[in-house]
């Protein structure tokens, strides 16, 4: 099968295991492309893509933009900070105005969970969710799975611990859906205040001791503490968080096995990861960034590929 079952990529929950495998396989081809002397292919040369970011982003927006340019698409960038949104325009009006300029696809980040789902029902364009509030961040989960597969050969049967601020993390939720669909076992670990109350109902293990989580897993995906989303104090101080949940080289050397360390970025060095871990041979953080471009190329290629 070479076609996705959906017109939009709104979340991992909405797509099938076959869709995920197709995206990972296609991304492997694009990874080869972006390592060629000439890294550009003409596939999307008659497509215009709008990157509509209602929330701050550096690496995701850059990664999407680079993926779009590597595919020869025309790209326009929109950010809410200098737009009519400030003047009271609705989401649908904003996007329809962009689409009236003959835009074919919209990559959107929004602080409200479900915003891309709402948009997909109200506008005529392929929508790619680049993060909606604390809900989903599908391309991050896909690139994480791609990176695990590349490093360990397979995902089925592997044990992945997601460590940190699970409560505010869209990366955690998308990763849980993606890894489970691909047959991995998933554990979440963090301070009890940063674990959603019913997280175990998703079929994940819950662990409060980071050392036990590291001993259990093959891969530790370490998340950032999202202070910008926290209106109240979930733990006494960053120093205390680092003391109980930060991962350092000594903890890894005490394990009786080698594990892979991942992080979706940006890293708070010295908080969730010490520098010697982030820069160690265990870490595949920079591979994740490179794989992000390949995954986004695959998603855009497959969504744009059906007859228009």
């Amino acid at each position, binding site marked *: 099968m070479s*076609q996705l079952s959906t017109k939009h990529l709104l979340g991992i929950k909405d797509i099938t295991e076959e869709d995920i495998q197709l995206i990972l*396989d296609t991304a492997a081809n694009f990874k080869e492309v972006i390592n060629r002397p*000439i890294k550009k292919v*003409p596939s999307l040369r008659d497509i215009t893509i709008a990157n509509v970011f209602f929330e701050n982003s550096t690496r995701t927006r850059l990664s999407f933009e680079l993926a779009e340019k590597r595919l020869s698409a025309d790209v326009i960038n929109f950010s809410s900070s200098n737009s009519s949104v400030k003047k009271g325009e609705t989401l649908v009006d904003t996007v329809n105005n962009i689409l009236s300029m003959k835009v074919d696809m919209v990559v959107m980040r929004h602080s409200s969970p479900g915003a891309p789902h709402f948009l997909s029902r109200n506008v005529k364009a392929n929508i790619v969710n680049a993060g909606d509030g604390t809900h989903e961040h599908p391309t991050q989960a896909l690139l994480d799975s791609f990176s695990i597969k590349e490093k360990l050969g397979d995902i089925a049967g592997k044990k992945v611990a997601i460590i940190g601020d699970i409560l505010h993390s869209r990366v955690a939720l998308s990763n849980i859906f993606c890894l489970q669909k691909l047959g991995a076992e998933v554990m979440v670990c963090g301070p009890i205040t940063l674990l959603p109350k019913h997280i175990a109902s998703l079929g994940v293990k819950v662990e409060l001791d980071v050392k036990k989580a590291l001993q259990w897993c093959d891969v530790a995906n370490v998340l950032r503490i999202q202070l910008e989303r926290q209106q109240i104090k979930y733990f006494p101080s960053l120093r205390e968080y680092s003391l109980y949940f930060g991962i350092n080289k000594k903890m890894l050397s005490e394990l009786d096995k080698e594990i892979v360390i991942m992080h979706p970025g940006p890293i708070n060095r010295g908080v969730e990861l010490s520098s010697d871990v982030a820069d160690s041979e265990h870490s595949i953080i920079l591979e994740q960034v490179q794989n992000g471009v390949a995954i986004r190329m695959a998603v855009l*290629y497959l969504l744009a590929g059906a*007859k228009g």
Partner: protein
Amino acid sequence: MQKRLVLDEVQIDIILRRFCHQLIENHDNFDDTVLLGLQPRGPILLDKIVILLEKISGIKVPSGYLDATFHRDDFRRRDFPLKANETKINFLIEGKKVILVDDVLYKGRSVRAAMDAMIAFGRPQKVELMVLVDRKLTRDYPIMPDYYGIRVHTLTSEHVVVQWKDDEHDQDAIWITEKVNP
């Protein structure tokens, strides 16, 4: 479904040997020559030629697989996108004589896309095309092979099927059949 045999195993073997001798004649000691098999069907033929060429001349010519899916001109004109295959080229083709190898030359669109894809690996000195079957009179682009096994007259409603033993068939053979949904 009607089906007629174009080449059998013995005839294909003779053609492969002829190809090797033609290459030796034109490329001497293969100093600057590389072979590229066009995905998805070219690599099977390419591997056979590389092995046979080494047996006959003692030279192992550098070879790779080239996939042109992302360079095709029918993207968004099909009901769904084509699935890409592996590109495996472990050398630069800058200044090289490149021989593109495929099983069937039909409309010439795949070869055009392949030449586009190939440029991403450098500027070749010269490009040649080798195909087992040249379907005459069906070309959309002005592309002609430098080496061909057999030239056949076919209709667009017909299909040229290349079967290889390596691909779990009883014998190497080339057939012309009618398309199920022309």
